């Protein structure tokens, strides 16, 4: 393995510094406000910071591991997300083979195509081939009850959890003149902007939030939180232009697109959770809920970011 690029080392060092500061603040708050563990907000904050450590370490290892590391990490994220999504659908006995094929054939094949960088096939494999094959497998079992609903749910689960998520490692296949060997930093840029946007929207919402955007979907999302979070995350994106092939203005534009898509991703995924009467997709990440609770904004922004960069900057 070659040494990681100095820019990547700088990014990881920066993240480490942020996390150490966050942990120190969390510790101080806990000492002052919740010495007996009774303040739910502080406890949740500390749970989240602990989970952030794990996520940053895993993400850092994957980025240092390059294409193989990143592809494996996101393949696993897809698997965990799909497991959470399918758990909440109305599948029946007759869908068993279609579901097993989704987990054990379509998911690995999609990531294999990403790994060998076959753009022509990985960009249509799920929306064309999987979408036609799944109903065929399900129909072969002869159960017609709620057929359309069942098929639609499974297809959308694959779209969100596998197809969209796989566009994060796909960023490594882009060939940007003058940027060779640094593509992992595009992933770092995407993930940092999305996650900073989530955190900053939360912070601005807590500070100034008054006007609810969609009270029925997500009572905590406010106009003030969204505008403040989007603008500050866009500024963060512009400030990170040194690690990207973009000028600061271009970086700000792409960050804004990422933030807006991420925001609506969160809203859509909330609507699904409301429909199913649950608060979190899962329980695997303490303080955050499930994988989908953390991935929802990345999922919606990844394919759009990928295509914008591909058409704007890449020669492939």
């Amino acid at each position, binding site marked *: 393995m070659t040494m990681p690029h100095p820019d990547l080392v700088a990014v990881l060092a920066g993240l480490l510094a942020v996390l150490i500061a966050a942990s120190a603040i969390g510790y101080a708050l806990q000492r002052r406000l919740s010495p007996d563990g009774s303040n739910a907000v502080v406890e949740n904050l500390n749970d989240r910071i602990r989970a952030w450590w794990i996520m940053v370490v895993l993400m850092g290892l994957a980025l240092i591991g390059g294409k193989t590391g990143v592809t494996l990490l996101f393949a696993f994220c897809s*698997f*965990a997300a*799909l*497991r*959470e999504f*399918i*758990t909440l659908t109305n599948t029946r006995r007759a869908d*068993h083979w279609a579901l*097993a094929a989704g987990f054990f054939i379509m998911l690995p094949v999609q990531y294999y195509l990403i790994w060998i960088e076959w753009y022509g096939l990985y960009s249509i494999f799920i929306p064309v081939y999987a979408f036609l094959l799944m109903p065929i497998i399900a129909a072969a079992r002869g159960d017609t009850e709620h057929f359309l609903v069942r098929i639609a749910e499974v297809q959308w689960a694959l779209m969100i959890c596998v197809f969209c998520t796989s566009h994060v490692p796909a960023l490594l296949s882009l060939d940007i003149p003058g940027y060779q060997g640094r593509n992992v930093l595009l992933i770092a840029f995407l993930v940092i902007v999305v996650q900073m946007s989530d955190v900053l929207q939360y912070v601005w919402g807590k500070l100034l939030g008054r006007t609810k955007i969609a009270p029925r979907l997500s009572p905590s999302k406010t106009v003030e939180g969204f505008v403040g979070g989007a603008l500050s995350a866009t500024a963060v994106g512009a400030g990170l232009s040194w690690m990207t092939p973009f000028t600061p203005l271009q970086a700000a534009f792409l960050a804004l697109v990422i933030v807006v898509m991420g925001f609506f991703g969160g809203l859509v995924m909330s609507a699904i959770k409301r429909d199913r009467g649950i608060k979190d997709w*899962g329980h695997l990440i303490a303080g955050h809920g499930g994988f989908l609770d953390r991935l929802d904004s990345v999922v919606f922004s990844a394919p759009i970011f990928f295509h914008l960069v591909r058409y704007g900057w890449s020669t492939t």
Partner: protein
Amino acid sequence: MREAGISLAGTLIVFFARFITAVRGRWDGVAPTDEQRIYFANHASHGDFVLIWTVLPRRMRFATRPVAGSDYWLKGSLRRFIGRDVFNAVLIDRDPATRTSDPVVQMTGALDAGSSLIVFPEGTRNTTDARLLPFKSGLFHLAQARPNVALVPVWIDNLNRVMPKGEFVPVPLICTVTFGAALSLTEAETKQDFLARAEAALLALSPKASTP
């Protein structure tokens, strides 16, 4: 060597169960302590006791023996290895005509040796649409024979979707195992009353019990 193989197989089975089901134990009525117990659970899949075993803290895992039908678990060397050696199951003959030892005696023997038990009072896997089949009387006789051992209801949710009867490829879905409050046989309680109370305690842990 054999010991290492058994321990490795146990670890692999637990790892596989976690990979497929991300199973979570919810201790709603009792805490995961070392107290000797009889866990009684709903039975929808051959993986049922694997999931209970997986969510038990490691030190309790090896002191907790599932009670299972010998007709299934003695068929073939792999099943025999998993059932008898890895899980250390108390294997009972479910057919009264052929059996040579009384199941209740076998179970009380295991309790007296210090083990906790996992029993499935429905007697067989539930493949119907009903959430629970009527309990067989074994649980009552066991409670009568060892009245001081706590009976803990355990609801296993979603595993029937992971691996429906007749399928051999599991579909990964999130499962939960909920442990309810312990109950014990009261004096002068009839068999019918006791079994009805135990069934109700188990059903109350089903997630569908709280949503209409």
